[in-house]
């Protein structure tokens, strides 16, 4: 039986002629620009070229002749992004790599010369789900990152240690601020709740300004580590602020036109609480220590842009309804305030009792 097994293994051995499919990506980031060497196994490359024998690619003349075409194919399956910009890869040269049974493609990558943040996505040989690409990133001559990408984990991201440019920080953190407002229904409902009762442009500006000033103060203090507040306290408080706005609106509606409008003060007061919430999100983004002030400012700008968008979309609509029919305006304000209050209650219960 053992002899039989030996025989069968010998017979079957060609089935494993190319068991271990790998490619290798070495990137070098330097102030003068980014360069790289991508080495791919001839068996994988030949798979892309019908009627080409894998071993024939190890001949320098054959490798040189087919290299630009092969590189174009590989480059279309490789995305290197530096500080948000996709680097443009251009072929420089190619040579057989006998140790790795492959072709080594040298290329230049045009983009930010020394990006701070890099992500690489590679699906070089989609036909093979087991294919692995070993990624090494050097900053000048120092090995900064070692990683492995495959079909299940095709993307890696790392920082080079270089200081991010001003515009990179601004772009990233403005986007983060806007994003946070739009993915957070609690902030959106809080702002909408403040607008439901309508009012003149001057009054709305006061409300929005009060909220902005207050949350900017606590956002800055918490981000700089001068004041701390635990999320388990802040998050339920944010929910309660929404409940409060809903209830205050309903009370104002019941009292009628003569009721004092406290919304600017409420926005200012609760703005301090919301600022702590923004700060916890900002910390999760990983603040660049070299550009803390810029990141803080940019995030705040992003929050304001998000907030202004909500105001600009909501306030004219409410004003139009109120001008068309005051009773319709009251009904909209009543129903909206009810929704705001109930949503706030739900979030409070969820954040306090983990429902």
């Amino acid at each position, binding site marked *: *039986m*053992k*002899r*039989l*097994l*030996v*025989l*069968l*293994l*010998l*017979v*079957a*051995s060609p*089935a*494993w002629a190319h*068991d*271990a499919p*790998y490619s*290798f990506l*070495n990137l070098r980031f330097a102030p003068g620009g980014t360069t790289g060497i991508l080495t791919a196994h001839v068996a994988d490359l030949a798979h892309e070229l019908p009627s080409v024998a894998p071993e024939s690619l190890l001949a320098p003349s054959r490798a040189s002749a087919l290299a630009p075409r092969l590189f174009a194919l590989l480059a279309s399956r490789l995305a290197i992004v530096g500080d948000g910009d996709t680097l443009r890869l251009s072929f420089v040269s190619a040579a057989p790599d006998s*140790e790795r049974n492959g072709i080594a493609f040298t290329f230049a990558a045009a983009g930010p010369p020394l990006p701070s943040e890099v992500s690489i996505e590679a699906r070089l040989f989609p036909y093979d*789900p*087991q294919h692995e690409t*070993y*990624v*090494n990133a050097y900053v000048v001559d120092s*090995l900064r990152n*070692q*990683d*492995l990408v495959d079909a*299940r984990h095709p993307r890696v991201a790392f920082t080079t240690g270089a200081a991010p440019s001003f515009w990179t920080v601004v772009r990233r953190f403005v986007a983060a601020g806007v994003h946070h407002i739009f993915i957070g229904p609690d902030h959106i409902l809080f702002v909408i709740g403040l607008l439901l009762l309508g009012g003149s442009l001057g009054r709305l500006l006061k409300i929005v300004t009060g909220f902005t000033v207050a949350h900017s103060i606590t956002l800055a203090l918490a981000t700089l580590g001068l004041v701390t507040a635990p999320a388990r306290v802040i998050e339920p408080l944010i929910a309660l602020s929404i409940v409060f706005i809903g209830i205050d609106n309903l009370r104002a509606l019941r009292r009628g036109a003569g009721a004092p409008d406290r919304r600017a003060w409420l926005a200012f007061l609760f703005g301090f609480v919301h600022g702590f919430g923004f700060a916890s999100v900002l910390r999760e983004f990983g603040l660049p220590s070299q550009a803390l002030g810029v990141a803080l400012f940019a995030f705040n700008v992003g929050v304001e842009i998000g907030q202004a968008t909500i105001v600009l979309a909501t306030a004219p609509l409410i004003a139009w309804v109120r001008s068309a029919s005051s009773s319709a305006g009251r009904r909209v304000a009543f129903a909206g305030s009810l929704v705001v209050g109930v949503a706030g209650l739900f979030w409070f219960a969820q954040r306090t009792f983990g429902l």
Partner: protein
Amino acid sequence: MYRFCLLALLVISAPASAHEYWLSTNTWRCVPGDSVVVRAMVGTGFRGELKPYTPKRVVRFTFEGTRSLDLLPVGVNGESVWARVTPADALGAVVCYESNGTFIELPPAEFDRYLALEGLAAPLAARARLGASAPPGRELYRRSCKAWIRGSDAARITRAYGLPLELVPDVDPCSSTRVGMRVLYEGKPLAGALVRAWRRPASAAESDSIGPSSSARTDASGRVTLSLSGEGRWLVSTVHMVRSPDPKLADWQSTWASLTFRR
């Protein structure tokens, strides 16, 4: 005849994936001051290709000699040389490697063929109970390898090093033709494991596929005795598969142990 046909079918139609995984060194004698170059191979039938190093896969990579040296930071991602290390004494050393889990998914029939080929009776039986509804094989596999750099102190190879699946010989496997071994899974004896040994004679080319020269299953106390006659490099291996501890990641978790040495 039936067994012949079945086995032939199993082997020839086996998945075109590499099974065995072993450590290889440039020298198999522990000499103080010499440079021991450590590589890893992956393949079948003791015919393999170099496996590049990656710290992403390493749980443990040590050189167990006079003291335990952590080799994890030594290697460079993608390099075929995993480490270069210099023994401090001539008593012998063991290179230990343990990887984290890598996911693979195989179609049902292919997965069953692979289980049969590797003698993994329990998972095969569990899948057979599901009949035609057996799902694709979703598996996390990990490696648990040792290489013995022979020295004068057999105790360095006869002790366990705490790998998840480990072949622990009773004697220096270079010095005896019948070698008893313990198979330990998570530190405990593993019964019913199929243990196979391959010998590569000095004359055999790296590209030659070698069939196992000895195989046996462990007894109830996790022990097995193999006949290891002949010079050359030896690979002893076994695999154990259990239900995956995290069903979201995979249905099965296999651990592949190997022990390499030269007589």
